[in-house]
């Protein structure tokens, strides 16, 4: 299969980590597209499903974790709720849960971001394309 396409929703701090990854020339899969949002609590589960339906193989929700400048610690809880909902919707559509990944990524957590993205690509390659 062609390289799996990954969509990363990167919140404030995670976006900075991605910038840092650039600065450090840290490689991650090319077919990774980063979309900047302020905080992952704004992600509607339907938007995640939309990405799958349009053809993304995996969605990585990179929140700021407890460093979230908007919500602090409570960011993780709020984002997890969206993710839970998204899992339910995915189940209904027969989309494998492994295709949705959430992680807190602090502004300097380059290794988390890059490492998880690489692993994610492996998982997605194994799964093959989304059944639509």
């Amino acid at each position, binding site marked *: 299969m062609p390289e799996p*396409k990954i*969509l990363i929703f990167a919140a*404030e701090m995670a*976006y*900075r980590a*991605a*910038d840092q*990854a*650039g*600065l450090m*020339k*840290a*490689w*991650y899969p*090319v*077919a990774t*597209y*980063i*979309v*900047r*949002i*302020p*905080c992952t*609590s*704004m*992600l*509607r589960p*339907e*938007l995640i499903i*939309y*990405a799958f339906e*349009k*053809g*993304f193989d995996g969605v990585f929700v990179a929140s700021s*974790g*407890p*460093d*979230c*400048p*908007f*919500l*602090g*610690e*409570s*960011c993780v809880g*709020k984002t997890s*709720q*969206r993710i839970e909902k998204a899992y339910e919707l995915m189940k209904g559509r027969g989309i494998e849960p492994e295709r949705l990944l959430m992680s807190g990524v602090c*502004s300097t957590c380059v290794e988390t971001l890059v490492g998880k993205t690489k692993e994610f690509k492996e998982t997605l390659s194994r799964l093959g394309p989304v059944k639509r």
Partner: protein
Amino acid sequence: MRDRIGVYICHCGGNISDVVDVERVAEAVGKIPEVVVARTYVFMCSDPGQKLIEEDIRKYDLNGIVVASCSPHLHEKTFRSAVSRGGMNPYVYEQVNIREHVSWVHKHSPEEATEKAIRLVKAGVAKVSLARELSEIRLDVKPTALVIGAGLAGMRAAVDLAKMGVDVHLVEKEHFVGGWIAKGYKAYPEGKPGSEVIRELIEEMKSGKIRLLTGAEVLSVTGSVGNFQVRIKVRPRFVVGECDRFEEAMEKCPVEVDDEFNEGLRKRKAIYQIPTYPELPAIDIASCNRCGECVKVCGEAIDLNQQSEVVDIEASMIIMATGFKPYTPKEGEFGFGRKGIITLPQFERLLALSNGKLTYDGREVRDVAFIYCVGSRNDEHEYCSRYCCTATINAALAAKELGIRSYHIYRDIRTYGKYETYYEDAGKNRMLFFRFTPDSPPEVRTEGEKLLVKVRDQLTFGEEVEIPVDLVVLVTGMELAESEIYGMLKIPFSRDGFLQEVHPKLRPVETAIGGVLIAGTCQSPKDVMETSASASAAAAKAATYLLKGYTELEPFIAEIDAEKCNACEDCVAECPSGAISMSEIGGSKVAVVNGALCRGCGACAGICPVEAINLRGYYYDQLRKMIDALLEV
């Protein structure tokens, strides 16, 4: 729909163009119907680069701009200004990151990198094509500030602000100012006693611009940046006037309780004073038995029936300087609770109370063991408080002058920067260092009058040593001081449990709550120098808003479509800042956002069941269209 978009692809010298075929990107996006002009340029952020945008806007009558270059964190403001100068709304602009996110990370696959850049730029165009014109939220600001906490940070910030012409309300929950610094024996690096540092600040404070409220606690805060209304309760001091016989009154008072200022090492009376400010005693009514002895001495200067007062103030900004509390070891932790086992703050007070001789419990102290990292760097507190190593060595050096030998039982020593010389001095002064690992912590046992500290010393490859001492000092780190105010203001906490700044480097003294700044140790453990520096920084930051007369907030707040809202109120509960309320509009109930309170997280939008809420600048139709664009072939 924006149908006259200009796209600018930056070479960034060769940073981008060495990897990404920028001409091909321009050519590809140039084919999008809405794109009127697509150019490449060697340095978009340069003056001529910016001019290019300005001129094109006029020449082609553009109504949307995309710049594909470095990270928006570097130049979003630059390009927004250029777009503004060109006569367009600055928020119909999108910066696409093809340097950090493309050329730098994919430099070995230029072909794929170019394709990726094309997709990302197309997504940028998609986003701009649906962008709405936004404007900053402008708020009038009066030069008044509230500073909460009158320790070193609060006093420093208040004094700095007052000097810049700001009216300051300084609120302290205790009856005396000074906080922890007032208790310090000799602050490093210059060895000035804490009480003197405070005295100098107090002198500076007497400018008339600072209104000090002691014994005061914040009851409620409403409003938002530029317009906070704060209700404060001032507890009575019971000492209402001057009298030159206060000393005598304090002698006569029959009640004795532990003296907090001396960390419980001494007793004080119910009417008491500490050597800071105001120079007027206070009566701690919880322990006072109302016998009236003090009144017999001081007459009208004391009023045992004084009532609390409620004071309402207005402030445009709030500086949090609520400080820290030292970690309190658990009963039995390294023997804590037994005689002779004390904390670092207690040791500081012992030093301050020493009169050429250090005594504890009536006996002279000769040997002291310091156990480091107590309550730090463990499962409960993962962080290092960092000030405590230097503070301990500094205290041990002061104790050395009183003829005290010290033994340092540590995990790691961090006397960074200017303070490394202290560590050297400690060695020169024959202080002994033993290093332990977290899996074999030292043990403390009591044998008669002596305390014995057993440690498996890593410096001698695991040899077990037992050191007899008179005093064991547990070097405790910092925790955030408790306060109701955090909850009232809804400030986010960091993972270490301190107050969270927006960004440690870019916005280090601001919180997510507009108009609420942080100074000193409520943000993280800090030493005296760092505390002063952060307080001055917060004051300076506040002043830039306060003295301008108005402030502008970014427009990225929640926007509710009243037509779609079904009044379920889910968003009201989800909003962390209480920015959403239900309102009657045209006869039906709908949710509305208070723009000054909204912090722009989008949590409400994420939970609304009918997509009635959007976050400005990140409208869901924009995000969907971006997804479409990223997947186009």
